[in-house]
């Protein structure tokens, strides 16, 4: 299978993980068995890290409040930022952990059912953690785009339905 075909498979399922295998094979003009084998290989070697569904935050009661929290940490000998980042990523409230360049070190996304629940997590779990020197919380008010998808309703502008 060519490099281009592999990239096409990955970019197609990144946009639509639910596409069925036979449609995917037809769209890319590849044998279904080859596509299946490649996806299985990618799942095994973690090139495909998981499948995620984009859902309106308000549709899930327990996760409707989100906060981005920038965290400055004291890097540790030998492990640097990894040890504390891994510790933070084990909390179920924390959905994303990223090491960043710039004025702070880690950027977390924390979700909860309410402002109070998120604040409670910060006060009782995050702030007291050894190695954290500073953190700043930004509650998310509205999301317009995520993972390449426009989240607002599309304009209802329509083309002519038939043209030469």
């Amino acid at each position, binding site marked *: 299978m060519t490099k281009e075909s592999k990239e096409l498979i990955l970019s197609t399922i990144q946009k639509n993980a639910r596409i069925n295998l036979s449609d995917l094979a037809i*769209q890319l*003009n590849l044998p279904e068995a080859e596509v299946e084998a490649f996806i299985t290989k990618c799942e095994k070697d973690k090139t495909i890290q998981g499948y995620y569904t984009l859902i309106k935050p308000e549709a899930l009661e327990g996760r409707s409040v989100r906060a981005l929290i920038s965290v400055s940490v004291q890097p540790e000998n030998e492990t640097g930022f990894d040890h504390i980042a891994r510790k933070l990523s084990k909390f179920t409230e924390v959905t994303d952990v990223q090491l960043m360049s710039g004025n702070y070190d880690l950027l977390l996304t924390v979700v909860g059912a309410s402002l109070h629940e998120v604040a409670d997590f910060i006060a009782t779990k995050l702030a007291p953690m050894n190695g954290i020197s500073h953190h700043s919380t930004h509650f998310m008010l509205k999301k317009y785009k995520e993972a390449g998808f426009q989240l607002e309703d599309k304009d209802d502008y329509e083309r002519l*339905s038939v043209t030469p």
Partner: protein
Amino acid sequence: MNDSQSLPKGRIAQHISDLPKSGIRDFFELVLSMDDVMSLGVGEPDFATPWGIRETAISALEKGHTSYTSNLGLLSLREEICKYVEVEFGEEYNPEKECIITVGVSEALDLALRALINPGDEIIYHEPCYVSYGPVIKMAHGVPVPVITEESENFQLHPEKVRAAITDKTKAIVLNFPNNPTGANLTLEQKKELAAIAIEYNLIVLTDEIYAELTYDERSISIAALPGMRDRTLLLHGFSKAYAMTGFRVGFACGPADLVDAMMKIHQYTMLCAPINGQEAAIEALRNGRKDMELMKAEYYRRRNYIVNRFNQIGLKCRMPEGAFYAYPNIEASGLTSEEFAHKLLREEKVAVVPATAFCTNGHKHIRCSYATSMDTIQKALDGVERFMERRKAKN
């Protein structure tokens, strides 16, 4: 008294009243009058113009760039075009004398034909083709000479057929590959053979390259770049298809200075210039639009494979088009003509396709299906075609 009875007879010019009414017009009106149609009938991208290009156009309006431009078009756009054409099509042009910006490639073709044709000159073109070729030649007082491309020859233009159509009145050949409606393309070898014929008979070649970027396999250089062709070829192109800019109406022609100058004479007295906002958007498309264009092309590629495979699975033979965004299945297995097929499919399944009679006189065996529409619509429309064909098979 009825007003129309007092109107003078013959007030419409003879060559215009002689133009046949498009038979497809009634069908188009029927489609447009219906709600909730799943349409495979649209000959333009379903993508909005990439945001970076739109943003540039908005910004230009905010700055008050609302004036005329030079008749030839903004020099900065012509410079970008000539750089692009050199890289993508393999031929160098001087932006000051050998490039003109037009209102879409349609105007470029019209200008070129009017600049070239003396009344009675014959112009060879291939059918099936875009609907305007024959009429535009007639409006320029030329004689259209269609050469039919056949399914058995992959809808490619057989050079020997062109040779057979040449008379002492032949002035030019019009080419459009990748082709609307068949999606066919020419091989480099065929381009070379056509170039040899053009040189042998001293003919001009107008090559409409509007779908050039939407070529899914290897792309060869333009016929304009073959030895001996530069001074007898007009390369016609635009931004509508590759950059999803149909409504901006920006096209261009590159060619020898005398032909471009002749086109400019007509353009300056009729159109004056292409709209400045579209021209500024086109500059942005050439400078920064390639990534968006490649993303759209990748999506067309997926849709092309899907639609062609589905037609063949359904039992409607469909060749894999090399370019553009049209599938051109043969519908003989339905036992219907293309117009009957299109009407019945529209009534029974609310799926719109275009009968090939819109593109050639003998288009009774094919329909054109655009895949410039969402995958979801394509899937639902093909489900409709499948149900339709199952009922046809049960009847026969």
